[in-house]
């Protein structure tokens, strides 16, 4: 289980980063990652072999975030109905919101690709997680970044002028 602890410590920040870009709720992100690690732990305990632990964890995180987003669309949180923003947090939120809005305009697989790329994953890891052929990652990524760049420029925010 020492190996598990290492995997946990190594992968938690990246999983957190990807999940946070897909989900607004930090508490939900913590729960999602905890759930993923519990599933992973149980698989190991039951003697199941997971060859690509990093890819497995990231894939599971993305899937759980997608599930969470679907559920979140059904139920609106009470605090989301009547927010009381402060000026300072509003500015930070605007930047974050702009990126999230731009990312949301991408197709699901493109968004996943962009998020994984932003976390500094290698093409091999991206290929394992997304199922895109290793030889096609570069091409797909190039197109996705071009599209994202165009979307952000179209949104015409002062930050990107």
């Amino acid at each position, binding site marked *: 289980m020492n190996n598990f*602890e290492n995997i946990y410590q190594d992968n938690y920040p990246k999983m957190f*980063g990807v999940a*946070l870009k897909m989900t607004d709720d930090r508490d939900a992100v913590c729960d999602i990652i905890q759930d993923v690690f519990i599933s992973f732990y149980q698989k190991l305990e039951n003697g199941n072999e997971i060859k690509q632990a990093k890819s497995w964890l990231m894939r599971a995180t993305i899937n759980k975030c997608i599930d969470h987003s679907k559920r979140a669309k059904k139920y609106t949180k009470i605090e989301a109905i009547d927010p009381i923003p402060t000026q300072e947090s509003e500015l930070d939120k605007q930047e974050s919101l702009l990126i999230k809005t731009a990312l949301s305009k991408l197709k699901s697989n493109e968004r996943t690709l962009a998020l994984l790329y932003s976390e500094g994953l290698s093409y091999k890891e991206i290929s394992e997680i997304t199922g895109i052929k290793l030889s096609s990652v*570069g091409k797909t990524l190039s197109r996705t970044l*071009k599209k994202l*760049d165009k979307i*952000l420029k179209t949104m015409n925010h002062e930050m990107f002028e």
Partner: protein
Amino acid sequence: MKCLNDEIIQIYIDGETSAEENLQVKTHIESCQSCAQKVETLKARSIQLKTWMNTIDKTDIEIPVFSPSPIVQRKRNTTLRKWVYAASAACIVILLTLFLQKPKENTNLMYSSYEVAGEFNANLPLSEQEMEIVIISEDGKIVTF
């Protein structure tokens, strides 16, 4: 060499080209101002997009201590409980089957004794005989013909 396309430039920027490809790209951009410019532009775009995507607040990530034990234990208990429920249900079904089963009726009349009342007239058919045959079964049931 033909000018570089976006795909190969992207792979080059990300350091994912093979040694041979890497050399080809380097050699080409040394001699092609247009492609060298394109590489710089796409490199800047990649860095900028990564930076923007990482502006989403990731500060203060506290890695909590992982403790799967209570949940694993709870799941195990759930499995055990399922088996207990299944066994209990099976017992109830068996008991109900045993208790509610109708006792099988004994169609063969066992008799312990019989009496013949009246006389048998040999000149009359059996249906017109005046005599009575009384059969007393083992459990005391009386059947008269």
